[in-house]
């Protein structure tokens, strides 16, 4: 028992330190971002041989309406990389912080048409097109760069799940909704390449430093 304890005390910290080291070091040298989400190995036949192909999680087709009453679909974002998030305009908790951080991304990539922002309201009942329009106007942002979308409530909550962001209606909490403050970085093939805490400046610093990696990789990405 005592022996066990010693092992526990001496090895565990070492293990933790090693893990920390390993998990830290690649990020400084890494030139490509991982593809997140569930993946499936699919066997298929090529030239009479069975090969295994990995199918990565991909954001499915979607169709919403933006602040200008225009339809926004996956085609609107085709060939772009984008940052997606979920919020609502009357949110009293994490949204102002998220939006102030999203503005940093907006300002940095204002002149780069390759990068777009996609904010989904999780309160479509209140956040009509007109409400989103006013919100975007007050933020003084361009629709072409930053799409605020609303739509069928179930579709929004379903797509949140696809972005791996928790979102739920909850009358018992302040504001009436619970949702993650995540910023999800999506590549031009609609693969998730990073998930960041949009309420933390340091996390958004990381996102800002990783967008260029994706931009660099994009021109050669498979369609």
């Amino acid at each position: 028992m005592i022996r066990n304890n010693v092992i526990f005390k001496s090895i565990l910290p070492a293990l933790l330190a090693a893990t920390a080291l390993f998990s830290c070091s690649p990020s400084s040298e890494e030139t490509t971002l991982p593809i997140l989400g569930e993946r499936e190995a699919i066997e298929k036949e090529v030239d009479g041989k069975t090969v295994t192909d990995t199918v990565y999680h991909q954001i499915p087709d979607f169709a919403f309406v933006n602040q200008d009453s225009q339809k926004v679909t996956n085609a609107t974002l085709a060939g772009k990389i984008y940052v997606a998030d979920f919020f609502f305009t009357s949110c009293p908790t994490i949204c102002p912080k998220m939006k102030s951080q999203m503005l940093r991304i907006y300002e940095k990539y204002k002149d780069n048409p390759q990068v777009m922002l996609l904010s989904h309201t999780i309160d479509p009942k209140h956040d009509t097109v007109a409400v989103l329009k006013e919100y975007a106007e007050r933020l003084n942002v361009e629709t072409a760069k930053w799409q605020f979308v609303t739509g069928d409530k179930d579709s929004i909550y379903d797509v949140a799940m696809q972005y791996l962001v928790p979102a739920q209606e909850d009358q018992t909490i302040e504001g009436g909704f619970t949702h993650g403050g995540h910023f999800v970085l999506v590549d031009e093939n609609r693969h998730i390449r990073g998930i960041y805490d949009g309420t933390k400046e340091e996390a958004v610093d990381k996102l800002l430093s990783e967008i260029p990696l994706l931009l660099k990789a994009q021109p050669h990405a498979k369609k």
Partner: protein
Amino acid sequence: MQKSRFVSGLIGAVALVSLTQCFTQKKNEGERLYAEHCQSCHLEDGKGLRGVIPPIAGADYLENHRNELPCLIRHGIEGSITVNGVEYNQKMPGVETMPEDDITNLLNYIQTNFGNQNRRYTLNEVQDLLNLCPPHQH
């Protein structure tokens, strides 16, 4: 003898700890209240959200509407307001349950931080101003 010395020492230590804690907490009371009730919207730096949530940092509103602020904290505000020449229209909820001394601490923190150098309130002043709150729906 040994024991009683130990006990008195212990009592002294406890008293000292609770006293200092009391002081530190009082000193940081405004900051704590800001973090709890205001920060998620007006943000850590008091700059608010561009166009949507007005700033506290360097806001002319704090001086121009000084006498309305206690009521504003307690009952919230709805409708259009102008801060530093920019119009805002986002409902701010009040904190109906906040006691008068907390409102005073919070307002004094706001008036003297974020680059603001405005006049502080006394508790009496805040009490008087709260008695004059306009009719509100709650």
